[in-house]
């Protein structure tokens, strides 16, 4: 359990996903980012990012636009003085790699289902 670190976790669904529904159990209707994750991460801000990439969308937005918009949203969300002084290079790199289908960052653990 994290108690001393203050971080933000931003969940980004895959293409044609939903920022809330993709993380929710269809049976119990519980959303683990909202209902379970905060219990293990006390001082972490948890957010979900949504973007319109559905197949029947009329939008001409591309992956590069999604990436730029997400980074811009993150810059807007960095409100504290400490955060504002930090570059967004690492986050940007991770977003780019994941959206382009490369392997996730090394500091992710894929745990077994409970």
């Amino acid at each position, binding site marked *: 359990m994290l108690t001393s670190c203050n971080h933000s*976790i931003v969940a*980004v669904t895959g293409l044609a996903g939903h920022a*809330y529904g993709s993380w929710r159990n269809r049976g119990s209707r519980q959303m683990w980012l*909202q209902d379970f994750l905060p219990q*293990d991460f006390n001082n972490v801000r948890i957010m979900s990012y949504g973007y319109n990439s559905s197949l029947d969308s009329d939008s001409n937005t591309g992956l590069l636009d999604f990436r730029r918009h997400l980074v811009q949203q993150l810059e807007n*969300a960095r409100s504290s003085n400490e955060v504002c002084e930090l570059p967004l290079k690492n986050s940007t790199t991770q977003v780019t790699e994941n959206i382009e289908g490369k392997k996730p960052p090394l500091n992710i653990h894929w745990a077994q289902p409970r």
Partner: protein
Amino acid sequence: MTLSSLLLGILVLLCCAILALQLLIISGRISTHQAPPANATQNIALPPSEQGSSCSAVQSLPSTHSASNLGPKCFRITNIPPEWSKDDLVESLREIQPPVGHFDGLVSLYPACCDTTSQTALLNLKTFPEFFQGIGPDDTKHLKVQCRGQSLDETVLLSVDSHFYDLTPLNKPEGEIVAELVYSFAMVPDWIYADVL
């Protein structure tokens, strides 16, 4: 020559199969969005006899789809004043015309991601009042409500949607945020833990 023709035929068949599969997926998505009821997509405005009431609602964007009334659904409400509580929000929503009546869902209220002067609410409804039925997958509706405890001139414009585009807060953290970890997943995992070292 015969072999190349055979390969070409197989390739054409594969392309047709992929195209048919995509059409099936798209038609399945469209068929899940039932035709809106006659009164669901209309602009919701106060009747003349109730113009002095504290709440009114207008639809800001054209509705391209209709929300389904089957099963629970989560709506996002943004631009909520920071001093509002859950009760204030629910009381404001009760004043929607036509009346919302009984709320059978859950309300979660969090500080907004990009704006320190507002809050964001997640409203999980089991059944949708008429106002929420008119909110399609890509729509955003605006609600003009009176500030709780303020004079009649003080109004707030709430935004209601179910698409959850952009950042949505999912908890109320304590303390200052000093870094962001951004992970995107092609598939929804069962459980993920991020090491913050």
